[in-house]
């Protein structure tokens, strides 16, 4: 029983892998230069079906279609920027892994720097306060003389 299950699983796995490989192999462009450019573009673009993958990584149906679109447009002589614009017109800035800098994305771009700035400012204030607290904590000559005496006395006690 178990062995049968194993072989069924293995067969399914092989079938899946074969299907995946087969699907990916079909639409390759004849021109390696175009293929390379389209791969580069596909890495810059997000797959909308599985949102944490790039088009290049994704095997989703839509991602395959979009990769095909990229190839065709490059073959038709369009520039990389034109292809990117084509995608943004349809799916919005969300498809870009490097969104453009504009009012709605300002916080996204500047946020980390603001956070860094705030942290550095916080650290600076903290250190200054600590330094002045330490300065205040310094003993007057009278006090230190007394402390010395106490320490010396304590040492004598131990003897």
């Amino acid at each position, binding site marked *: 029983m178990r062995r049968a299950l194993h072989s069924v699983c293995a067969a399914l796995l092989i079938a899946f892998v074969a299907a995946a490989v087969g699907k990916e192999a079909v639409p390759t462009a004849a021109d390696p230069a175009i293929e390379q450019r389209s791969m580069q573009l596909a890495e810059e673009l997000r797959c909308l*079906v599985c949102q944490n993958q790039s088009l290049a990584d994704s095997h989703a149906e*839509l991602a395959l*279609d979009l990769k095909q679109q990229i190839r065709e447009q490059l073959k038709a002589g369009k520039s990389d920027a034109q292809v990117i614009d084509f995608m*943004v*017109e*349809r799916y919005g800035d*969300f498809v870009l892994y490097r969104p453009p800098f504009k009012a709605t994305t300002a916080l996204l771009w500047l946020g980390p720097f603001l956070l860094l700035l705030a942290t550095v400012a916080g650290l600076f204030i903290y250190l200054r306060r600590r330094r002045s607290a330490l300065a205040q904590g310094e003993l007057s000559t009278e006090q230190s003389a007394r402390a010395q005496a106490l320490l010396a006395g304590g040492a004598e006690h131990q003897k």
Partner: protein
Amino acid sequence: MKRFLIPLGIFIVLVGFLAVGLQLNPREVPSPLIDKPAPPFMLPQLADPQRQLSHKDLLGQVWVLNVWASWCVSCREEHPVLVELAKSKVVPLYGLNYKDKRDEALAWLTKFGNPYALSVMDTDGRIGIDYGVYGVPETYVIDKQGVIRYKRIGPVDREVLDAKILPLVRKLQG
């Protein structure tokens, strides 16, 4: 006491952000197509592939475009709502049958009922790409001038229909 207030404050703000984040739906990507002219198409009709339908044929009326497919599971979920919408005759509903096989699409409509005034076949998904489709079903409200005024990604339920689509349609029909 005071030294605990700051971390507590930061923690509360963080929880606030996370709570809001959990409520958001990451699948709802704001469409850049809102308030833009609906992309042109000229596609064979599902019922009679010899005849074609173009976006121009639909100018002058408010209409709803629904992207569906027989392989799409959530389409089944929203289907009763669409059938109801069609019965109310408030607004014509047109279907974009996305990356489907004709016989399967027809069988699907026979089985579940056909709410569409017409469905067109986007077999290779090209028009779907123009409409920024990425999660079937998707639903668009298009005005008399052929401008997209609303887009819904994912199944339409009663709530969305009553709260968003129908009021908008009435407003656009003026």
